[in-house]
C-alpha cells in the first residue's frame, strides 16, 4: 500500500499503532510459558498479568474479569454458547440476540436463539425487546455499536430487563472500544467482548470481560488457562500489544471523537452530494462509520472503481468466497435487497486525515456516475 492510498476501512481492521508494534516486538523475545513454574515462566506470567491490568483499566473492568481470547469472535462465542450452556444447566432455555449482531453472536439463532427486532433507524426496538425477556431467558446479547452502521445501541433498558429476571447480559463492544465511551463496570454488563485489531492492536487477540459471579461454560477443551473458560497457552506478546493499543485509544478518545466527528461530517456531506442516502444519521452513532446507500448502482461496482483509484471502502457485510452477500443488518432495518446491494461503508480511524477525505472528494463523484452507468438494471 503506497502513501497515496486512502484507507477508509478501519471498521474491518485498523493499522497497528506504533505503541502496539513496540509492545509486540518487546514481548516477543520473552521466553517462557506463563503457566510454567520456573523463573522464565514467572517473567512471562508477570508480563501477561500486566497486560491484563492495562487492558482492564482501559475497558473499565477489574483485572480478574478479563479473559484473553483469540479475538472478538471467540469472545462472543464463549459469551453466548458458553453462557447458554451454563444457564441451561440452571434451567434457562431461551437466548435472545439482536437481529443485527455480528455472525459470532447471530450464529446462535441456528441453535435456537430468538432475535430482537430493530427499527428503521438501525437501533434495537427497546419496547419489543424488553417484552421478549422472561424468567426462562439465559443470555441476552446486544452489541454496543453496530459494525456496519455505527449505530449506538440502547443497551441500558434491555440490560435492566435482563437483570430483573436473572438473565446474563452480554454486549459485543468490538466497534465501541476506542470509539465511544465504554466501561464494563459502569455499564453493568455481565459479559463484554472486545478485539485488538479494531483499535490498532494485532489481529489474533481479543478479550471477554466476565463478571466474577458469572461462569460461562468452556467451549473448547484444554487446560483452562484463562479462568477455566478459555484454554491455550497465554499469549503474552499479543496481550501486551492489545493492551498498549487499547490504552492509547481510550486515552485519546475525547480528542479523537472530536476530530473524527469533523471528518465524518465531511464524508456525510460528500456522499449526500453524490445522491447517497446516509443510513446512520437518525439514531445516535459512533464517530467512525458512515453507512450510505447509493440508489441505482451496485456497491460492488463502486467499491471496485474506488479501489482502482486507491480508495479502500467496504460493503460492510460478510463476503462468501469474495461474493458480497446482502447485508443482514440492512435487511433487518427494513431495507430491500436492492438497497442493501447498493450500500457502502466508509470507516475512519486513528490514521485518518483530512487528506483522506479530500482524496475521496476527488474520486467519488466520477466513480458514482460511472457505477450508475454500469448498472444494467438502473
Amino acid at each position, binding site marked *: 500500500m503506497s502513501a497515496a492510498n486512502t484507507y477508509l476501512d478501519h471498521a474491518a481492521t485498523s493499522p497497528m499503532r506504533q505503541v502496539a508494534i513496540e509492545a509486540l516486538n518487546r514481548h516477543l523475545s520473552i521466553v517462557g510459558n506463563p503457566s510454567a513454574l520456573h523463573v522464565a515462566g514467572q517473567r512471562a506470567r508477570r508480563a501477561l498479568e500486566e497486560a491484563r491490568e492495562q487492558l482492564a483499566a482501559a475497558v473499565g473492568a477489574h483485572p480478574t474479569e478479563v479473559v484473553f481470547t483469540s479475538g472478538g469472535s471467540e469472545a462472543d462465542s464463549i459469551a453466548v454458547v458458553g453462557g447458554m450452556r451454563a444457564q441451561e444447566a440452571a434451567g434457562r432455555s431461551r437466548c435472545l440476540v439482536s437481529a443485527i449482531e455480528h455472525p459470532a453472536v447471530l450464529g446462535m439463532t441456528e441453535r435456537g436463539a430468538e432475535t430482537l427486532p430493530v427499527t428503521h433507524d438501525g437501533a434495537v426496538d427497546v419496547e419489543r425487546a424488553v417484552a421478549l425477556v422472561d424468567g426462562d431467558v439465559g443470555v441476552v446479547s446486544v452489541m454496543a455499536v453496530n459494525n456496519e452502521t455505527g449505530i449506538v445501541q440502547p443497551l441500558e433498558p434491555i440490560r435492566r430487563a435482563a437483570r430483573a429476571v436473572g438473565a446474563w447480559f452480554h454486549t459485543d463492544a468490538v466497534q465501541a472500544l476506542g470509539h465511544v465511551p465504554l466501561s464494563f463496570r459502569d455499564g453493568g454488563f455481565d459479559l463484554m467482548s472486545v478485539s485488538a485489531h479494531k483499535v490498532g492492536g494485532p489481529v489474533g487477540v481479543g478479550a471477554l470481560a466476565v463478571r466474577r459471579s458469572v461462569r460461562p461454560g468452556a467451549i473448547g477443551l484444554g487446560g483452562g488457562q484463562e479462568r477455566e473458560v478459555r484454554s491455550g497457552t497465554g499469549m503474552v506478546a499479543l496481550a501486551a500489544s492489545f493492551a498498549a493499543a487499547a490504552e492509547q485509544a481510550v486515552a485519546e478518545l475525547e480528542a479523537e471523537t472530536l476530530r473524527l466527528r469533523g471528518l465524518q461530517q465531511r464524508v456525510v456531506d460528500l456522499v449526500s452530494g453524490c445522491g447517497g442516502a446516509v443510513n446512520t444519521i437518525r439514531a445516535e452513532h459512533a464517530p467512525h462509520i458512515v453507512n450510505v446507500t447509493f440508489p441505482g448502482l451496485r456497491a*460492488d*461496482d463502486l467499491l471496485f472503481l474506488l*479501489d482502482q483509484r486507491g480508495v479502500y471502502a467496504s460493503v460492510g457485510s460478510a463476503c462468501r*468466497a469474495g461474493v458480497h452477500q446482502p447485508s443482514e443488518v440492512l435487511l433487518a432495518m427494513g431495507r430491500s435487497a436492492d438497497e442493501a446491494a447498493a450500500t457502502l461503508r466508509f470507516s475512519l480511524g486513528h490514521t485518518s486525515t483530512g487528506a483522506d477525505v479530500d482524496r475521496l472528494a476527488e474520486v467519488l463523484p466520477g466513480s458514482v456516475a460511472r457505477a450508475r452507468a*454500469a448498472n444494467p438494471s438502473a
Partner: protein
Amino acid sequence: MSGGVDSAVAAARMVAQGHEVTGVHLALSKNPQSYRTGARGCCSIEDSHDARRAADVLDIPFYVWDFAEEFQEQVVDDFVAEYRAGRTPNPCLRCNEKIKFAAVLDRGIALGFDAVATGHYARVVDNGSEVELHRAVDPDKDQSYVLGVLNQTQLRHSLFPLADTPKTQVREEAARLGLSVAKKPDSHDICFIPDGDTQGFLSRYLGTDEGDIVDADGVKLGIHHGSHNFTVGQRKGLDLKIPAPDGNPRYVLKIEPVNNTVVVGSREQLAVSILRGIRPTWTQHPVEGPWRGQAQYRAHGTPVDATISLQAGELVVELDEPATGIAPGQSVVVFDGDRVVGSATLAESH
C-alpha cells in the same frame, strides 16, 4: 480467472504485454459450497482463493464478480430445459455466449475496460477489416469449438493470450512465474455438476419416471427411468431384454420427451448426412454459400468435410460422409480450414 493454470498464465501474459490487467473470478453459484470440486476445476471457494493467489503473484487487482443469477438462468436452467425437450446441450458454449463474453464483457466495458482475456486455446487474428477466430495450434487443447458462438463484436473485445502455446509449456511457464496452480489438474467436467453425475443431476430436476424403449416401428423392447438419461447415438446402458433380430447392437435414434419414449435402432438407421441448425451465429458475417468447409458437432470431435449453406435463416450442413451420434441440441460449428465461420444449434438431422 477460474483458479486454474490456463487463466493464470493468460493473465501473466497480459501483464507482460503491458496491459493494465484486473483479475476477475466468476462466482457462478449462490452457494459456493455446492460447487466444491477439490482439485477438479472451477467454481469452488478454493478455486477462487487459488485465482486470488495467482493475481497477487502477478501483482494485479482481483475481484470476484457474482454472476450466479445470470448463470442459473442462462446456463443451468437452459441445460435442464434442453434435456427436458429431449435435446443434448453444451453448457460451456452457452456460458461463453451468454456469460463470459456477454454479461462479463458488458460489465467490464461499462467499468472502463477494453477487453476480456481468457485462458482459452484459440487465436484471434485481425485481418485488417475484421477479427477472425482460428483454431489453436495444439489440436489436443484447441477450444475454438466452444468459442464458435462468438460474434464479431464479442471477438473484437476478446483476447486469448495462450493462443498457440502447447499445454506443457503453459505449465512450465506457470512454474517459472511461481504460480501455485502450475500443477493443478485440468477440469473436464461440467462445472455445476462437480461429481460428474450428469444423470443424477438431471434426475433431481426431471424425475425418474418410467418410460418405454421402442424400436422404429414402435414395438416395446424395454423400459427406462427418465429419457434425459439418454443421448442420440448412445449404445451402452439400454439394458434391453429382447435382442435385435440381426443380433447387432442397437443405438438410441431419437428421444421423445413428451411421451417419455426412447427410440432405438441399428447403426445404419443412426447415420445422417444433412444437419439443420437453427439460430446461426457468425464470427464475422453471414455466409450464404453454398461453400465447402468443415463441420464439427462435438467439443472434442473431428471436423468433417461438408457443403454448407444458409437456407431460410437456417444453417444447412451436407456431410460428405454420413455420420452417427449427432443429437439435437448440440452445436455445429463450421470451419473454413482453421478459421471458424459460424455456429448453429442442431434442430434436426437425417
